[in-house]
């Protein structure tokens, strides 16, 4: 983790494994309006790193994940994987690339077919891509089960016969079957008990080392993301508000929204918990069918000024930050700035 912290700044410019540029995804509603679930997101993921993607429920993280995995067609923008443009690829042309990008799903109950045996679920990737069959497939599946910490003898069981944590291991085994380069983990632990979360996270970390994987790790739980990620991207209402190396995000928080998220993290020490600042955001997350003008966060931001409602800030380095730390805010926080006493004033500039 500490190595990863110092690396990004000095790392030579290499081709990123994944490059997302200005991706938008709109869903039609019954009326004439559209839901802008993802509204112009750009980010890069380097080979071997873990990018954490955080944000509230409904901010578009899962939609973004599905756009990257080509489960949704993007409305506009570009998704480039390992030098290949994915947007606009036909299903047939996408097929070989499916092997490179895999997904681990949030719900270990919903993501496994209840009527199929575990062996055939994990063997699915081999069957679909015609890689191996019969006894060879069975051996490969049992190897995979062993890798993710399942008893290979449970090959013939049904998903209902496993616990939540075991089911998520099945999902991990299925995702790893084709030796992908990029694994998108869509809230892989949020449906699990805390004690099981740690097991799955450690499993993912071990597998990353063993198979040289790159992760996009989506979660609404900042403490989980902090533990696994090299860099973190914070999303709000379909847009990125701050991207930074993990520790830098925690130490030099620039965006008021990120600060609010961090302040909501539970702290184990009661003394610290009492004294630290509490930022309670007013109101609910605005509707994605009709997002606020200007900065999307200005309706709830304690530092909002007239500028925030008038113009939209770009995602750029602010203050003295390096190129790795980008923030979309006109009035970024300085270190030590107290946000709990700030009052929004939309008339002042």
């Amino acid at each position, binding site marked *: 983790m500490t190595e990863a912290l110092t690396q990004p700044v000095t790392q030579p410019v290499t081709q990123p494994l994944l490059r997302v540029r200005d991706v938008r995804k709109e869903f039609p509603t019954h009326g004439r309006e559209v839901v802008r679930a993802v509204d112009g997101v750009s980010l890069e993921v380097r080979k071997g790193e873990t990018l954490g993607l955080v944000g509230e429920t409904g901010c578009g993280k899962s939609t973004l994940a599905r756009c990257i995995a080509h489960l949704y067609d993007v409305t506009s923008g570009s998704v480039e994987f390992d030098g290949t443009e994915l947007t606009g690829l036909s*299903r047939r042309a996408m*097929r070989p690339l*499916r092997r490179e990008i895999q*997904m681990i799903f949030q719900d270990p109950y*919903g993501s*496994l*077919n209840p009527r*199929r045996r575990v062996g055939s679920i994990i063997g699915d990737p081999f069957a679909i891509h015609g890689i191996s069959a019969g006894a060879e497939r069975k051996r490969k599946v049992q190897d995979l089960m062993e890798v993710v910490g399942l008893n290979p003898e449970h090959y013939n069981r*049904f998903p209902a016969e496993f616990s939540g944590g075991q089911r998520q291991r099945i999902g991990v085994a299925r995702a790893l079957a084709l030796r992908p380069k990029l694994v998108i983990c869509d809230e892989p632990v949020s449906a699990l008990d805390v004690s099981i979360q740690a097991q799955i996270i450690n499993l993912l970390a071990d597998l990353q080392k063993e198979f040289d994987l790159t992760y996009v790790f989506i979660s609404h739980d900042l403490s989980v993301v902090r533990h696994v990620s090299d860099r973190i991207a914070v999303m709000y209402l379909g847009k990125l508000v701050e991207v930074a190396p993990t520790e830098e995000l925690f130490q030099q928080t620039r965006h008021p929204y990120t600060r609010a998220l961090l302040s909501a993290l539970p702290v184990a020490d009661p003394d610290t918990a009492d004294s630290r600042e509490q930022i309670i955001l007013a109101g609910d997350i605005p509707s994605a069918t009709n997002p606020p003008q200007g900065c999307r966060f200005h309706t709830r931001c304690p530092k909002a000024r007239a500028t925030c409602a008038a113009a939209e800030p770009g995602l750029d380095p602010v203050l003295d930050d390096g190129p790795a730390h980008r923030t979309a805010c006109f009035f970024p926080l300085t270190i030590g700035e107290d946000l709990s006493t700030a009052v929004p004033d939309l008339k002042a500039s």
Partner: protein
Amino acid sequence: MTASLEMLETSAPAIEGRSPFLLAFRRLRRDKVAMVSLVVIVLIVLMAVFAPLFATITGHPPNEQYRDIGLTPDGLPRGPNGTFWLGTDDLGRDVLVRIAYGARVSLLVGVAATAITVAVGIVLGLAAGFLGGVVDTILARLIDVVLSVPFLLVAIALVSVTGPSLSITVLVIGFFSWASVARIVRGQVLSLREREFVEAARSLGAGDTRIMFVDVLPNVLAPVIVYTTLLIPVVIVTQATLSFLGLGLPPPTADWGGMISASQNYYTTAWWFILFPGLALLITTLAFNLFGDGVRDAFDPRADRLR
């Protein structure tokens, strides 16, 4: 049964998974009414299969008319006696033997028409629910149209054009029944296709056909199996209805609906002529219906707790 249950639960790693179907089958085996019905169904099937045996034992071929010993001097059917155990019909034929042969027709039509119905219903229901869009719009409207066509009128019209035959009966019934199966399947698929495991299959690179038949189909089988077992008696009654109206099989083929139809003029004088074919039809459909109820309960996860 109990032994194998205990074995599964006590042996350290139970390697064989217990499929939902296996569990349903176990519940079914504990259902006494369903098991008795199953025995009755098996007996009827045996009767149909060994119908020639009835002819051999009684010495009366099904279409042989015994105008001398099978009819009274007035030309009326004879009641049950030592020679004709269940009496004779208006042409002096053995009712027992004809009931046995009639079971063949009922079961054959029941199974064949149901098979066509279910196969067509599953495929079209899957396509409509899963593919959505234009395919769904067209198929859903087609289902509505088929369900609103007056079945008997069209059947009468069709048979009067083509002439009565076994295959026409099966096709007519199949054509008018698939829509309800398709509607059930479509409804299930509409919710199933939004499930995450379908998305997972897609992210692995599976195509529509594979997802429909490998991932979605096993999840709609339970309601379809329940519906199928309850459809068989409906089809058998429908076939009897068509025969009763003279749209079934051309004479002299023995079938229950035709026998009941022929007995209409004799019910005041020859009760056996209408009673025994009617009983055969009643017992058969009742057995299938009760068995179907058992199957439905077995597939209902709540049924286990209620008992």
